[in-house]
């Protein structure tokens, strides 16, 4: 273990500047969950293999379990808690409710964040593009077909 020293940092999370005292090499996920008490992003693997910890960094889905906080101080970070605007759910949040797209729901954070990112980049993805776009997300319950249905529903409307 390297000798670690805490530093004062400011992170822009869900549109607000949040200051925290933290060791700079701490992965973003721990800062969000434990320092800022945002429980949306989940620890799944710590290896960037499963997507449970995904957040939007400048609008693009990124795992948060390895990237150190020191590398995201210039970025706009959005978690699942920050997707709704003025109390209105993001259309994908509503579609996930409508399609009841969850079983245990542990992967839902990452799947939803990655879907938002996908639609940010491609307004009209094909079925194959949706599936490939979500390749980084592991779901063990087998809710895949419902997640895909929910995304397609948003595309239709």
């Amino acid at each position, binding site marked *: *273990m390297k000798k*670690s020293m805490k530093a004062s940092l400011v992170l822009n999370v869900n549109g607000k500047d949040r200051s925290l005292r933290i*060791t700079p090499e*701490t*992965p973003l996920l*721990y800062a969000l*969950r*434990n320092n800022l*008490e*945002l*429980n*949306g*992003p*989940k*620890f*799944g*693997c*710590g*290896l960037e*293999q*499963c997507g*449970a910890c995904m957040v939007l960094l400048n609008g693009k889905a990124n795992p948060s379990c390895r990237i150190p906080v020191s590398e995201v101080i210039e970025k706009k970070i959005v*978690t*699942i*808690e920050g*997707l*709704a605007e003025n109390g209105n*759910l993001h259309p994908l*949040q509503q579609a*996930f*409710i409508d399609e*009841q*797209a*969850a*079983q*245990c*729901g*542990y*992967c*839902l*954070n990452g799947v*939803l964040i990655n879907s938002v990112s996908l639609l940010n980049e491609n307004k009209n993805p094909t079925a*194959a593009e*949706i*599936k*490939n*776009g*979500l*390749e980084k*997300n*592991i*779901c*063990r*319950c*087998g*809710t*895949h*077909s*419902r997640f*895909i249905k929910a995304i397609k529903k948003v595309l239709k409307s």
Partner: protein
Amino acid sequence: MSTNRRTFIKQMGYVSLGFSMLGTACVLDSKKSVNAFDEIPKRPSEEQINAWIRILGDGRIKVLTGKMELGQGIRIAVAQVAAEELNTNIDLVEVNLAETGVTANEGYTAGSRSIEASAMSIRNAAACAREILKELAAKKLKIDKDRLDLKDGFILNEEQKFSFFEILDGQQIERNLKIPPEFKAKASRKIVGQPIKRKDISQMVVGKHTFIQDLRFPGMLHARIIRPPSYTSKLKSINENVFSGKEGFLKLVKIGDFLGVISEEEFQAVQLQREIFANTEWETGAPLPADKDLKTYIKNLAAEVAVEEQRGDWEKALKSASIQHKASYFKPYIMHAANGPSCAVAIYKDEKLKLWTHSQGVYPLRETLAPLLEMPQKNIHIIGTPGSGCYGHNAADDVAAEVALLAKNYPGKHIRLQWMRDEEHAWEPYGTPMAFEMEAGLTPEGKIAGWKYDFWSDVHSTRPGGNPDNLLPARYLGKSYKKPAGGFKGGALRNSIPYYDIADLQTQSHIFSGPLRRSALRSLGAFGNIFAIESFMDELAYKAGKDSIQFRINHSSDTRSIECLEKLQQKISSVKKSKNQGVGVAFSRYKNSSSYCAVAALVEVSEESEVFVKKMWAVIDAGECINPDGLKNQTEGGMIQAASWTIKEKVLFSDQHIISLDWNSYPIFRFPETPECEVEVIDRVEQPPLGAGESAQGPAGAAVVNAIFDATGIRVRDLPVKDQLAKEINKK
């Protein structure tokens, strides 16, 4: 009596408040939680109505289930049956999940029994409560009971309206359940049988749902376990000087070879876990049979052999048959592989332990922790909190036992322990490997004549059950705890007797003790047995020159089986297969006594012998259906999960330990590989509801393999398909 009752209600009211706060803020007020800590609650007997239903002062109704929410949607189902019988808006119903001293002791949330057991007890209690509420109101108002109605927590007639709470004078209904109670007429049900939406999903999409991993208490500390390099390695030495001065380090708990580190912050614990391991030396453990072919290896292990079913004379029938056929099959170790690693939180204070867990059985866990911790059961309070989906007995109980040991050695603080990904993969108890040998004959008319089935299996459950051997940390404490012998061979027998009309048959079990940790994985032995039996049925149908569905119908006399198969036939009759595509079907009645499920799969096999499952269909009859969308969700998920098991999954190990340590070394289906799913529910309102969470596993696996045969003419008998298909193609 009435004072006692009031105190009791007050305590219950408090517990309820605790849970509401959990749901919204996740942070419990430390002062209150310590107060509650001192009062380990007492609960009414399961015979009493208030064991299941309580009326809250604010107009809500609390339903208490002894089961856990695992993502199967039990919370909404039990709320639906209660709301229906009490004619109440479902938003007024809140559900208290399994908690010692609070909910009924319903054992484990397992075997697809939650609807059959818990939901039906709650339905009984709600129906009894409705009649008692009406009687009490009638007496109070001096009018006939039949002139009163219930609606949304009130009892009313044209002129008056009283809340349930007022009618009860703030008390709870302690009377015993009357069986059978008068249920609401099936025709007038408005909530049961409807696809009512789960409340937790609305919370999940905004990041406000509380998983066990999300619990946070003021001053909470974090912990990690330092694992040996193998199951049986002994600790030789540890250099404590290197890490004891590290920032945030609080304590290394060392009991025998059990090592746990406690720190102020979570990431410190993660770093300390690595650093401490790097400063330990371990003896090499007993070797695992890594170089052996597992199918041959398990068949040669010492085994307990028993004839499980004997009908007629299979040998004579087989000899007289015009066609004889034999085949052998295999499934490897498969893991639960929860998406979120196992987690638990505990605090030990004043010789009492309070523990939050995603265990499937809070009472059996308490019974097992008591001897392990050398504490009386009455001083242990366990609160069930939903975790990541577990699909059976994973590491939930192990992590709970570990954090309890740490808390006992570091009193006064909440301690949170979560496993890392490599621990979850390498240390959970797996679904056991199984081997199968089948032999049967066919008459010239294409009927089965003689059926002989032998299967080899480890035990399918090492759930806590009061025996600390079953909890992982026990064997490292330097006490007399050992590798669990396991129990519940019954899990291996599940669906080993075909649900078909076969006059002459024998089923024989060979129960061995295998090299890796193992316990209940969704459907237990049913997945392997149905995979083998339904693959073999497909082979027999082909030999007999019969349509696969018709062949099954020809051997069925249960009209519910036949209806499932016929409906499935209709679904797939219009499927147009392209080149390299095939359709396969399979059927089973789970446990031969629960839900009926027929599954079809459409697969495509590439030139490189890669298998893509394009679409899966299921027709399921689970008796009376409480929530059709929940039932569909479980069945879709079951099909996708079982297809992943079948095509891709196998736990790998070296001579020292498991080497499937992450999602690359243990790949499962990802989005591009998953099929579209379509599920049809046959709702039989006149029949009792049957558990359905595990019904799709077996037929889904067999349907995929049967579809591969349809596409390629190649029969894959040893799983996983991805290892075997290329070999079989090369053989040709």
